[in-house]
């Protein structure tokens, strides 16, 4: 069930994310090696429908500093749809994935009316 109030709240939060990401880009412009540590992380999704995946991919791309590089579709029960996300300004892979999963939690809470299960519980994490 789509929750309109939460959806509006999500759009406002996206606006805040766009502004902070823009500040990141501007700060990196005046940092000597600001653009030198990109990474591509693999992000299994909790989104299931096409609409959720499209909205999440668009949200990631419009945020400065993150970009969807490739989408692998789901082809089975234990093979979730996966995004490959190019991240520019993140300290480590885990930090980047925590931020992205936070965005996904907000989107799914707005789209489904209740928060999804935590990502750690769904996919596990086979290493630290």
């Amino acid at each position, binding site marked *: 069930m789509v929750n309109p109030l939460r959806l509006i709240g999500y759009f406002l939060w996206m606006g805040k994310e*766009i*502004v902070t*990401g*823009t500040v990141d*880009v*501007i700060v*990196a*412009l005046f940092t000597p090696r*600001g*653009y*030198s*540590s*990109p*990474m*591509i*992380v*693999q992000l299994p999704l909790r989104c299931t429908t096409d609409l959720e995946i499209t909205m999440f*991919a*668009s*949200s990631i*791309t*419009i*945020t*400065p*500093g*993150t*970009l*969807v*590089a*490739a*989408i*692998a579709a789901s082809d089975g029960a234990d093979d979730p749809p996966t995004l*490959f996300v*190019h991240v*520019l300004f993140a300290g480590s*892979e885990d930090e980047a994935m925590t931020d992205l999963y936070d965005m996904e939690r907000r989107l799914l809470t707005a789209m489904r009316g209740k928060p999804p299960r935590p990502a750690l519980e769904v996919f596990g994490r*086979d*290493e630290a």
Partner: protein
Amino acid sequence: MTTAIDVFIAFCVLSGSLLVLTSALAMFRAKDALSRINVFSPATGLGMPLVIVGCYVYLLQREGFSLYHLFIGLVGFASLIIVSSIASNTLSRATLLSGSPVHRYTRPNRLAYARGEDPHVDGPAAMHEPDEAQVGDEAQVGDEPRGDDPAGN
């Protein structure tokens, strides 16, 4: 009152154009095509919408309220954000498919190495040889277009 509105219009227009310039300079400094597509979103996500807001307020001050202008402004504002995001997705995917090289300090690169197999991040346990320019694993993203050698030259 008019002065305040003028200052607001000037702020919107100037910060919008400065954000486009920021994107241009960031593209100048970024290392590979994916980073350039990445730093394009300040221009389309914040800069051009600010120009639209400034333009709409200018028109509002000049000609009064009009439902048509409000509609066009809102649709333009939303379509800039949504459309440019989808365009960036398409272009980044095409860039990877066409095999343009990823910057060699892209670590970790999960398109080339799965988690736990990256020799740069996860230690020397991995068996792959590090390349100078790692190209995304085409098996993950789709068919590789036929044609010349994608890794450069």
